[in-house]
């Protein structure tokens, strides 16, 4: 049976990349959902640009504290060991190499790992936010997004034609159709959504996909 991953399942798949003790920053959109799927038995330190480290899943309606939010202004919960600081310190952590993984949304990712995720063509302005610093400083950059735009245009491309967030910064892309890593030879397809063939994924991808010898279905 063919089954695209929904937004929650993409987040679940991304969260499997988190190791014990990792410091992880989650961007807006699908990435924030990862906080609800932290792997059991592993302590993951969620970091946010507004100055918090060690927050937990998103807060329910009855536990909302306006002074306990992430950079996406979502209400969050605390976990033991949580600490607070200012944004300058939050970015010192990022640039200083203290953040292990950042998960971001994307408009386009090129086969060289370039990322465009802050402004759409034709728009007068977009939000750079913390993304440029995150892709510069984080040890591993994962992009979580739909495989194509609403109009069906590929978002994995040979060259980004949108304004860049960062050059050659993306390590891994998790979409509703596939898990792809960026290598020196370009995109490498590691996993496909249930029921999808590599050819079907290639047909909605704007650059060549090398297919891993160990290709498998995404385990959900």
């Amino acid at each position: 049976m063919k089954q695209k991953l929904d937004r929650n399942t993409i987040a679940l798949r991304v969260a499997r990349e988190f190791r014990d003790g990792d410091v992880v920053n989650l961007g807006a959109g699908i990435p924030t959902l990862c906080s609800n799927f932290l792997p059991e038995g592993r302590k993951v330190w969620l970091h946010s640009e507004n100055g918090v480290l060690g927050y937990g899943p998103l807060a329910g309606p009855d536990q909302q504290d306006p002074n306990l939010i992430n950079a996406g202004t979502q209400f969050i919960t605390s976990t033991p060991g949580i600490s607070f600081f200012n944004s300058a310190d939050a970015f010192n952590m990022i640039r200083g190499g203290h953040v292990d993984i950042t998960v971001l949304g994307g408009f386009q990712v090129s086969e060289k790992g370039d990322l465009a995720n802050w402004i759409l063509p034709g728009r007068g302005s977009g939000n750079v936010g913390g993304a440029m610093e995150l892709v510069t400083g984080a040890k591993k950059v994962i992009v979580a997004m739909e495989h194509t735009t609403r109009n069906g245009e590929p978002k994995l491309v040979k060259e980004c034609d949108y304004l860049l967030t960062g050059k050659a910064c993306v390590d891994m892309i998790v979409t509703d159709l596939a898990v792809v890593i960026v290598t020196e030879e370009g995109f490498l397809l590691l996993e496909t959504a249930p029921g999808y063939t590599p050819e079907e994924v290639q047909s909605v991808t704007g650059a060549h996909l090398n297919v891993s010898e160990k290709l498998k279905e995404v385990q959900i």
Partner: protein
Amino acid sequence: MTLAKLRGRARSDKVFVTFAEAVADVQDGATVIIGHFGGPGGMPMLLLRALRDHGARDLTIVGNTAGIGVVFGAKRDALRIDPGVLVENRQVSRAIVSYPIAPGAPQPNPLEEGFKAGDIKIEMNPQGILAERIRAGGAGIAAFWSPVGVGTIVSEDKETRTIEGKEYILEHAIKGDFSLIRAHKADKAGNLIYRGNMRHFNVSAATASRVTVAEVDEIVETGELDPDKIVTPGIYVNRIVCRPKQFRGK
């Protein structure tokens, strides 16, 4: 503890029982940032003693002093250990410092003698710029323009630039292999709080090395420290060692 065992430790297992094992993997030639100001306040004394006993040589030490014999701010019963123990033990080949000599010291100290003999290189820094270079190292800033020390020995052989009519010097970041720091309390996740003016160079030193080791008076369970009072978030801290009772608060 063998080095293999040390390397095999889980990342979140930060509590070390002895000071010796917390510095067991400091290699010859390492750069060690020592969080301290001058006197015994905020000085990681037991870590320094352990590093002396460990014996790693050819070290680059980074810090406000290179050991001035804790002549000031010391109570009579205070421990008297500072970075000077490494210099005296001939473990230091380079010192990046601001205030390496005691005010009014009549005799050259071991650092001055080592410098004279050509065994030790000394790099002098304005104090605040030294702190800022360490912070930059921890914050991923490669270098910055400083207004301090223009026209003095500090500006020799450095790039300069005029910005809005004022002259600045390019100061480079400092990164360490190990930071030895002192704090008051830690939780098991490595979060740190300080007491009195212990923070001085310790807060920036905590961020700037591959391995940061904190010497504290007390270790509590994760979650017991008030998050609003935590100054150093635990992700900067890799190892914590608690002082034995008789040395706590000293």
